């Protein structure tokens, strides 16, 4: 279970996260929606300490992380409990697809190379890239790179998988293949928090939807609730603009 309590973050004078509380049960898929600048990506990056939250508590399983002046050890421990899939893929440019996936296994988890390669190959086959093991990122399409990114994150067997707009940088025709992979791993019961603009996908895959705006959680609930009967005015406006075909007027 993941529990965020009172997460606050400021950039200079601007407060981007104004005390976020969020609970994610094990095996749940949480989609975070919201307009750009709402703080959703910042929140996700705080969970992995790629952004430093000023105040707040992050609890992953039985590990409790206090954001106020954490030591190097605590940061390292927090990062090992989650894995991130980036908007820009961020594959290690000088390593092949397989090397990207096994890097964490051999360096962080200290698993021997043969075993790591076996697992890495398995994961790449799972995301449909069994034939691209030795390709460098520059030789792969965006969709393929992102699928390697997902395999790399999964290899670490994180307690929670964080996905930061995983399809935003992709050509429209490549979005489908990445979403299909995410859908597949969601069904396997991996806990996920996903920041996305793909409303249809969120509605379909997420078990819980969070709508953020201006650094606060405006509304959250089951997708069937939030998408069809949003309570807050701000949520209604947002959904109307994103999905004009949904109309709430009679």
């Amino acid at each position, binding site marked *: 279970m993941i529990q965020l309590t009172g997460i606050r973050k400021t950039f200079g004078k601007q407060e981007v996260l104004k005390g976020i509380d969020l609970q994610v049960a094990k095996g749940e898929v949480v989609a975070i929606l919201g307009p750009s600048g709402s703080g959703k990506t910042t929140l996700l990056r705080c969970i992995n300490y790629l952004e430093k939250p000023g105040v707040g508590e992050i609890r992953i399983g039985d590990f409790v992380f206090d954001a106020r002046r954490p030591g190097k050890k605590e940061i390292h421990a927090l990062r090992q409990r989650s894995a*991130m899939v980036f908007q820009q893929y*961020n594959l290690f440019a000088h390593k092949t697809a397989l090397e990207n996936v096994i890097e964490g296994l051999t360096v962080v988890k200290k698993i021997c190379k043969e075993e790591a390669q076996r697992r890495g190959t398995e994961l790449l086959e799972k995301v449909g890239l069994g034939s691209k093991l030795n390709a460098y990122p520059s030789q792969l399409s965006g969709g393929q790179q992102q699928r390697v990114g997902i395999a790399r994150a999964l290899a*670490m067997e994180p307690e929670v998988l964080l996905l930061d707009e995983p399809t935003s940088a992709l050509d429209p025709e490549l979005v489908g293949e990445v979403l299909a992979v995410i859908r597949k791993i969601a069904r396997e019961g991996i806990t996920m928090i996903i920041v996305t603009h793909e409303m249809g996908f969120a509605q379909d895959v997420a078990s819980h939807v969070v709508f953020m705006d201006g650094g606060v959680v405006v509304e959250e609930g089951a997708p069937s609730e939030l998408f069809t009967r949003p309570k807050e005015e701000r949520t209604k406006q947002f959904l109307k603009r994103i999905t004009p075909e949904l109309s709430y007027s009679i």
Partner: protein
Amino acid sequence: MKLDPAFIWTAFVQLLSAVPTTLAITGVSVLCGFVIGTATALFRLYRIPVLAQLSAGYVTVIRGTPMLTHLLLIYFGLPVVVDGLSAELGLGWNSAKIPMIAFAYLSFSITAGAYLSEVVRSGLQAVDRGQIEAAWSIGMTTPQALRRIVFPQALAASLPNLSGSVIGLLHGSTLAFTVSVVDLNAKAQIVASTNWKFFEAYLAAALIFWGLTILIERITALIERKIHVYRKGGVA
């Protein structure tokens, strides 16, 4: 004056004995300079208080003064420091026992460090921040991420500049003759003056320097070809 083509070859053969000295000065200054340069570049990039300012000062002072001046300052300054320390602490050191080449090693390492600091810094800045974030996200520590992910890519990005600096230091190592180190250039002078054939001797020295430079260029090209496998980009 008449050119004696045969003597070019004679000088060439005699000069070869000084090649190890030239390579040693270049090698030591490049290696030590690379360590100094990497450290100072990291201090500056990570804005480590005090050390970052000291590093920036070091780079501007050393790059702002000639390599020959560094050598002379070390040559005349170091003995004063060594003898002074020795007298103060009763160490029994004697600056006269410092081998001449040590002055060259020390001073050129300091020179190289300043130039390589900028080479390393530009290389590190060429690596996308997403690379180290990805390394952190899979649980690597910062030293692990730097060593395994950032440095190899930074090295690749700085290779053309690095090769240029190495060539510059190879040629700069000729200044060592001012402190009586017999490098290639000094050897050429000895061979020339004992035979009274200056042009031939220096021509032979030039040929050897050119040969060594081609070697550096070849090694660079070899590494570049390896890197090209993963690196696409640029305008070509």
